[in-house]
């Protein structure tokens, strides 16, 4: 599983990355987590804002910090 957290580096983006890492760790799933900070690369996902979470190529959340429960549901745990 491939998880990307899109965000240029503000507190909300960092918080989102932290929650994603916690959710993955607690779930025990095998996932590669990447933080994407490059504005041009973020633009390729067509998101209206950040932070955004992308799981296996599908954008799951935009412009808000998802809950840990949401992330666990998205990764199937």
């Amino acid at each position, binding site marked *: 599983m491939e998880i990307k957290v899109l965000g240029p580096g503000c507190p909300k983006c960092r918080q989102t990355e932290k929650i994603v890492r916690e959710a993955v760790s607690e779930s025990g799933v095998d996932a590669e987590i990447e933080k994407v900070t490059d504005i041009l690369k973020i633009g390729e996902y067509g*998101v*209206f804002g950040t932070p955004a979470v992308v799981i296996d190529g599908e*954008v799951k959340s935009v412009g808000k910090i998802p809950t840990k429960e949401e992330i666990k549901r998205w990764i199937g745990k």
Partner: protein
Amino acid sequence: MTENCCVPGGTVMILSCSGGSNVGQLSNQAAVELTREGVGKMFCLAGIGGQLSGFVQSARDVPEMVTIDGCSVGCAKAILEKARVPLKSYLVLTDLGIEKNKNFDLSSEDIRRVKEAVKAILSEK
């Protein structure tokens, strides 16, 4: 990057049908000018219609959105329904008394009326 770089806190998403008539193009021009004026930010309805997840999820998650259809055919509204995006503020330009035709020489007065109508809808929120 600043500490507040994340958007769209409070940013209004503007969607226009941008269709092939005077009212379609009026919706487009109004969306462009409202974006320039800082009222909101025009977003890509075609991306939502194409079911691209970044566009669809952005429209689902944004707190404030205004959708502008040129006429009562309601193509923009239909795209949102198909993508399971809740319709929020909504405006149909022919309801403003603007007649639909194929004249693409848009009048500044019509553009002004559309922009004022959008601002009025948003001020009711």
